[in-house]
């Protein structure tokens, strides 16, 4: 094993796959000469040249559409969005073209493409730069949505995303690029759609994904001191999500807390809550508890942001609530 940063895991995944397959290219703002806005493509221009590591003007709709079009003539593009906040001006191309070309053509054209970049909040970036759109993309048939929370998963799942023959949304975080973690020296690929049991426990199941899952770990440490044992599942993929992993755990603990950085209405937590009441109603000893951001645009001022964004204290509160503990 070796220890690398999250950004290096992204870079290694892209570089290894580009060495393996000549049809892959990386396209986006600042990916080439600048080495990536967050240095996730550091050194790639030098290795692969300007034909395959391509700087774009600020035209998220235009370059998304060109990348999608090129899948129809044999490319497997990786499109970097500096953040998924900026994907909104190009989202028509993702929803109406990438996700639909295969279906509309009756299966004649596949669309092997990865859109990747950071999602959700990253400090005091205020309303337009702090949004989590996992559930927007995950709502759309035709797409797959991966949200890793650590370097090991990021590398293994990004390689899987690049090899996948369907369009994949791959969501990172500005606040994770510096995170360090162990990855194998050799090549590995992780399966899409498979959650990981991060911590075993008996009293309550906590489901989360992406960078916010760290708050669940902190909460579990606190709760352990009080004799409460939490089982933590990292979803890793939100479309398709690993229903069986959640069901198995909830059938053991009989209690479920979901932690997701997203607005509360109609999100991934909502879907899981519905699934649990439909498929494990008789196993539940308490209502499902979900923890999201406040139902407002992200505020800038530090005190307001702390109130808006969930943290481990919210998880502690939620776990106690489903356990009927003070």
């Amino acid at each position, binding site marked *: 094993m070796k220890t690398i940063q999250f950004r290096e895991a992204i870079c290694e995944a892209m570089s290894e796959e580009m060495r393996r397959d000549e049809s892959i290219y990386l396209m986006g703002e600042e990916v080439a000469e600048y080495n990536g806005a967050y240095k996730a493509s550091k050194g790639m221009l030098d290795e692969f040249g300007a034909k395959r590591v391509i700087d774009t*003007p600020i035209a998220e*709709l235009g370059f998304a559409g060109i990348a999608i079009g*090129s899948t129809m*003539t044999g490319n497997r593009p990786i499109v970097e969005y500096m953040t998924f906040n900026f994907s909104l001006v190009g989202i*028509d191309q993702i929803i109406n073209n990438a996700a639909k070309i*295969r279906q*509309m053509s*009756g299966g004649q054209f596949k669309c092997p493409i990865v859109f990747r970049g950071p999602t959700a909040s990253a400090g005091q970036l205020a309303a337009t730069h702090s949004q989590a759109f996992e559930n927007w993309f995950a709502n759309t048939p035709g797409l797959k949505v991966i949200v890793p929370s650590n370097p090991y998963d990021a590398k293994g799942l990004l390689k899987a995303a690049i090899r996948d023959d*369907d369009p994949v949304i791959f969501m990172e975080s500005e606040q994770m690029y510096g995170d360090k973690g162990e990855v194998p020296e050799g090549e590995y690929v992780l399966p899409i759609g498979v959650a990981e049991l991060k911590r075993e426990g008996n009293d309550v199941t906590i489901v989360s994904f992406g960078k916010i899952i760290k708050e669940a770990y902190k909460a579990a440490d606190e709760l352990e001191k009080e004799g409460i044992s939490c089982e933590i599942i990292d979803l890793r993929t939100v479309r398709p999500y690993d229903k069986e992993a959640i069901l198995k755990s909830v059938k053991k603990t009989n209690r479920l807390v979901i932690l997701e950085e997203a607005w509360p209405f109609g999100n991934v937590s909502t879907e899981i809550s*519905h699934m649990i009441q439909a498929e494990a109603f008789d196993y539940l000893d308490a209502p499902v508890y979900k923890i999201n951001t406040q139902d407002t645009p992200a505020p800038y001022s530090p005190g307001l942001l702390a109130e808006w964004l969930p943290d481990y204290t919210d998880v502690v509160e939620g776990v106690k609530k489903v356990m009927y503990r003070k």
Partner: protein
Amino acid sequence: MKKVTKDVLLNWYEEMLFWRKFEDKLAQVYIQQKVRGFLHLYNGQEAILAGALHAMDLTKDKMITAYRNHVQPIGMGVDPKRVMAELYGKATGTSQGLGGSMHIFSKEHRFYGGHGIVGGQIPLGAGIAFGDKFHGVNAVTLTFFGDGAARQGSLHEAFNLAMLWNLPVVFCVENNGYAMGTSVARTANHTDIWKLGLGYEMPCGPVDAMDPEKVAEAMSEAIERARSGGGPTFLELKTYRYRGHSMSDAQKYRTKDEVAEYQKIDPITQVKDRLMSDHNMSEDHFKDVAKRVKERVAECEKFAEESPFPEQSVMYDAVYEQEDYPFLPAKS
């Protein structure tokens, strides 16, 4: 440009007439409610397709367009019976009944759709050309869109990137005068759409697109430029549609006199006149053509009528390459 011989004119006449009658048949079966959804017909604009096909290398060049897209794939070589079947929602349709009127595709014949969001296909066309350039394929992609789409941001981003990366693409706006019910004059401060190319230093210009030969001339020059590494061209094809935007259009935004003026310069009539005046073709010939065309259209209708509807599994199978994708239940 390849010479416009008597044989070319004969072919243009017969194919354009077939496209016209194919669309007329669709209008008829639409009223009979055998074809549903939206139906956007090409009547009046046939010279564009005839001229484009003459200029293209049909062994490798590509085409993409919006939702007024029934006859282009036929021109590219797709069996018209399968296009008709797609509109009927049948399993034998080009997209197995999943696409309908607005989404005809043929990978085999390099027809890339069939797109429903106005202007959304413009970057795709540039991207298809990007892929060809990336792989060293010496092909050109004709990217069609309507005058309404010329007001979308997608056009401007695609134009800029196509010039920046020198892509082998010809952007073709089919200016039929109206974006649904809104005239070109009501969508911008000037009506010369081709001038949008000037800001990108893209070769551009207007074309009389009621005459297939004029279209073929302009297309040939643009395709040759793209093929030889000269990058994109933007052509404004000045045309006219006789029918409404779609079948539900009452056409209160224009007069019958205006439609009649354009019918005087109808592309099919223009070619017929040339065949009669320059090549001494007689009315007997045109009667024979009309008979053949009628039979071909009838064959399409019969095929579509008799084809089965798709199995329900097609709805799931077409979405992902992954064969065992775990779709969520509709009810739980």
